[in-house]
């Protein structure tokens, strides 16, 4: 994959808002090429707004988004669509559309109304559907699929677009734990196999740490910290970004940072906060950690 032209995405001095309310005030960022970048932050911190602005869905009031060093607003939108794909948070499918048809529509930026469907389009669709493992359901209507299958179909549509950069807005929402990991593992596969640049918004910090090469933590429309997960996800940053006291321990499976919220009640029996947080050997504290970790979808933790 050495000969593939890598595309770069960056933002410079962005200010974005809806109507009168400005959400992002002055934000600059470079998306590392060929890596998985995860944007995290509390609700309404502007992470989706940033993603949409990067995908040119929102027009910044100040500043620019740069695709290959050129302002994205200046590039014809069709041309952008051959370099940058987007999966919105809750895409809508026309009633009764089949999987193959929906994925096929991802070819739009690469067809012209004179040059209609061709063999290469079929191949691109086939490849997208093979890598997302939805080929076997090619002729099923999309409304009959499970949430996980549907999300994979949408990802296949974005893949059929054959872009080097892929932006996904909370692709794991509404999926159960198994399907969440299925989708995230798939994104890692895609990133590894042809060095795609992937940017996604995630809510789960532990998943963000596990799957992201590069994390961007946002608060009030600003970037608080960015870098690799172990630099970004510290107890101080989480306290700052989410206003939540946590303990960060190594993920027993992947070794990446794992966030364990402390909260006000650490066990069902009456134990004070300080005792639970301070203790490293108490059985109850270990049980609380285990319960919390299980809730986050991680196997049993080894005691510190």
């Amino acid at each position, binding site marked *: 994959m050495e000969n593939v032209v890598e595309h770069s995405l960056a933002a410079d001095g962005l200010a974005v808002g809806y109507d009168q309310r400005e959400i992002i005030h002055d934000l600059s960022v470079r998306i590392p090429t060929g890596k998985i970048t995860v944007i995290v932050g*509390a609700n309404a911190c502007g992470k989706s707004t940033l993603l949409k602005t990067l995908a040119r869905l929102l027009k910044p009031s100040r500043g620019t988004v740069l695709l290959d060093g050129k302002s994205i607003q200046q590039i014809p939108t069709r041309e952008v669509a051959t370099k940058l794909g987007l999966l919105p948070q809750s895409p809508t499918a026309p009633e009764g559309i089949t999987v193959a048809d929906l994925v096929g529509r991802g070819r739009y930026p690469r067809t012209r109304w004179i040059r209609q469907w061709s063999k290469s389009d079929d191949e691109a669709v086939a490849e997208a559907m093979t890598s997302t493992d939805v080929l076997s359901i090619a002729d099923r209507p999309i409304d009959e699929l499970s949430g996980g299958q549907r999300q994979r179909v949408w990802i296949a549509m974005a893949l059929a677009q054959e872009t080097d950069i892929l932006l996904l807005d909370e692709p794991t929402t509404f999926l159960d734990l198994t399907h969440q990991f299925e989708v995230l593992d798939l994104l890692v596969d895609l990133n590894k196999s042809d060095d795609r640049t992937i940017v996604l918004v995630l809510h789960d910090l532990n998943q963000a740490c596990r799957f992201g090469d590069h994390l961007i933590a946002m608060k009030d429309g600003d970037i608080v910290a960015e870098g690799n997960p172990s630099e970004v996800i510290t107890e101080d940053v989480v306290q700052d970004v*989410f*206003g*939540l006291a946590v303990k960060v321990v190594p993920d027993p499976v992947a070794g990446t940072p794992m966030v364990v919220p402390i909260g006000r009640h650490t066990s069902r029996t009456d134990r004070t906060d300080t005792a639970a947080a301070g203790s490293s050997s108490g059985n109850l504290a270990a049980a609380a950690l285990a319960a919390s970790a299980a809730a986050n979808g991680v196997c049993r933790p080894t005691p510190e």
Partner: protein
Amino acid sequence: MPPPSAVASADPDLAAAPARPQRRARRTTLVLGLIGCLVLLILVMLLSIAIGSKQIPLSTVIDALRHYNESNTDHVIVRSLRVPRTLIGLMVGAALGLSGALMQGVTRNPLADPGILGVNGGAALFVVGGIYWFGLSTLTAYVWLAFAGAAAASVAVYFLGSLGREGATPVKLALAGAALTAMLGSLTTALLIGDVDTFDQFRFWSVGSFAGRGSDVAAQVAPFILVGVVLSLFCGRVLNAMSLGDDVAKSLGQRVGLARLFVAVVVVLLCGAATAAAGPIGFIGLTIPHVARLVTGPDYRWILPYSMLLAPILLLGSDVIGRVVALPGELQVGVVTAILGAPFFIILVRRRKLADL
């Protein structure tokens, strides 16, 4: 993840202490506003009695009301024409304002208005049928027909629009109303095309007007509207619970199905009677509750009385304007309210997310 401030406001004493005097002050403001509306309404009513093809000075109007003199033509006009007309305007206005607020509350739908819910289409078909098959031609006969038609149509639309899981969404109800109105309209037209006389009578009813309505019509609809008004003023608390959604209302101990039925019956009483008295009048029921809501906030215990007073102010005002702008004839009140009301509605659609009521 709760914001840090959640902890502070969780303390009941701290939160309630400053709220109490504020609430009392707000209450005083709202009561004063209500009194202001009442004064304005009385003023508009006096104007409605005074202004017409023959102008009558306010002093004579008050004189005619207090010391009636049969030999004075002005007094006769006031007593036999202007007063019944104004009373009908008052009743129709109050009924439309209330039924609009009730409909919007119970459907959680800012688009619910008697006209949009097909009441007018049903009333029209029944009136035309009455003229065509039974040769009815008096306004008093129309009242009963319109009443029956309105009831039938609104029940059908409400039923169609609120089937299904998520209940009556704005678009669904509007379209169920549009569909039924179109079908009824088609049937109505079929009758009208075959018969010039029927059409000739119907076109004057269908535009919505107070012209020619005398004390007999007023007496006919008054009992329905009075009962409806009294019942609807009890609905405030129920609507407040319903406005949080069916699930929350249920968990608050509200019997949702029963409450909805009760409100629907009140709406049919009110708006059926209003349409029967004056023909289809658009947009009062739709817009007035929104105006009321701007003043009062989302509390239906205040929205309802405000709607009841504001609607007749607009309606009687439109009627007066209609009488003045087209002298020596008059512009029907239905036309004036649509032309005044629709732009307001459009502004509303542009400014707000209507879906979240």
